[in-house]
């Protein structure tokens, strides 16, 4: 149990069970692991019946920031070994816990309270037509007050505290959702003067943001004039989780060229690390920026531009 064994221990075991001399067993094992290693390097995969599968998995090159200095470093692409044990072996290893099964937890055991806040936050969503965070929080406070009276009468204070906490979080969450959702749709849709007029009556901070949004909309139109229809390779709608680097890899065959997609859509994307979802971005044709994934010069140029963009952000 829990012993650390070495090759010599294994040799002894094998010699005993297979009825061969220790010398033979040692030679066999040495050859076995040597062969596995050699073939793993050449074939990238070695399957052994009764033991499992060894595989070499390619790791793409990626950039990391040094935690202490904040410098960007590049990790070259390399292979890592993976080992997946045979099902029979995996089951044998897991024998002590084999009787345990995945349990479905009852809602009663944990979730009595979350049901209430969900209903309330849904009602809130219906009430809220305006996508402004400030008014949201105010209305949240009002409803908190009304709940306050009824709950304190019942002397169920702990329930009340819990609900208040949930209300605040759900309130801000919905507010943010509304705000960003509208922000994204405003950017993609044509300018609507009615919306802007409404915003003037709102507090200053909000109208400032909306002004910048309208500015962004104007520059979008300018940008689309600059890029002719002939220069556009494709149009992509940003989905949640979509990354410029991925799109670049798909269309140009190299991650580094995301900078050109950013350049072409600069007016839509303020921060390339946080691209708003729902907007439609334009993929420029390769010729415009001399994009060539097989040409190392082109890649270095893109990487130089990348460091420039990222340093401008800071």
């Amino acid at each position, binding site marked *: 149990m829990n012993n650390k064994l070495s090759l010599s221990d294994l040799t002894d075991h094998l010699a005993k069970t297979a009825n061969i001399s220790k010398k033979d067993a040692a030679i066999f094992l040495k050859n076995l692991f040597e062969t596995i290693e050699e*073939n793993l390097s050449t074939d990238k995969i070695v399957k052994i019946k009764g033991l499992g599968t060894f595989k070499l998995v390619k790791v793409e090159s990626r950039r990391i920031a040094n935690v202490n200095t904040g410098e960007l470093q590049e990790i070259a692409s390399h292979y890592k070994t993976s080992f997946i044990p045979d099902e029979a072996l995996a089951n044998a290893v897991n024998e002590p816990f084999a009787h345990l099964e995945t349990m479905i937890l009852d809602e009663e055991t944990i979730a009595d309270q979350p049901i209430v806040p969900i209903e309330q936050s849904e009602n809130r969503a219906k009430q809220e037509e305006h996508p402004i965070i400030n008014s949201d929080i105010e209305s949240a406070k009002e409803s908190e007050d009304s709940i306050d009276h009824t709950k304190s009468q019942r002397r169920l204070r702990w329930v009340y505290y819990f609900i208040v906490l949930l209300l605040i979080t759900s309130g801000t969450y919905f507010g943010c959702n509304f705000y960003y959702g509208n922000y994204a749709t405003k950017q993609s849709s044509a300018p609507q003067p009615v919306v802007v007029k409404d915003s003037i009556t709102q507090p200053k901070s909000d109208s400032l943001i909306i002004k910048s949004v309208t500015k962004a909309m104007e520059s979008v139109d300018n940008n689309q004039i600059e890029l002719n229809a002939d220069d556009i390779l494709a149009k992509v709608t940003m989905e949640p989780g979509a990354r410029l680097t991925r799109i670049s890899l798909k269309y140009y065959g190299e991650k580094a060229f995301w900078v050109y997609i950013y350049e072409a859509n600069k007016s839509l994307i303020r921060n390339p690390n946080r691209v708003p979802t729902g907007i439609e971005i334009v993929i420029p044709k390769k010729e415009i920026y001399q994009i060539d994934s097989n040409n190392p010069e082109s890649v270095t140029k893109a990487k130089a531009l990348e460091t420039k963009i990222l340093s401008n952000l800071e």
Partner: protein
Amino acid sequence: MNNKELTAQLSKKMGHSIPETQTLLKTTCEVLGATFAEMNSLTIQGFGTFEVKKKQERLTIHPSSGKRLLIPPKLHLVFLASKSFKEKLKGENHE
């Protein structure tokens, strides 16, 4: 590379017949299995380490049905390549 190719190559290297190598390989795997079933770890110099590790129990939520599930703890066998093996792989990539 599959089991057949491995036995063929091994028998060639050691000068044994293929059936002989096959039984020997089978016994080896059985011995290894017995070793790991006892939760022992095995280190082979220049190749790597086999180790039995415990995965803690955890809570998950089923993405489509939204049910909360408690996944039981599990023992599983892991293989960690040795440093020299990793270096070798690295060296090959540069060529």
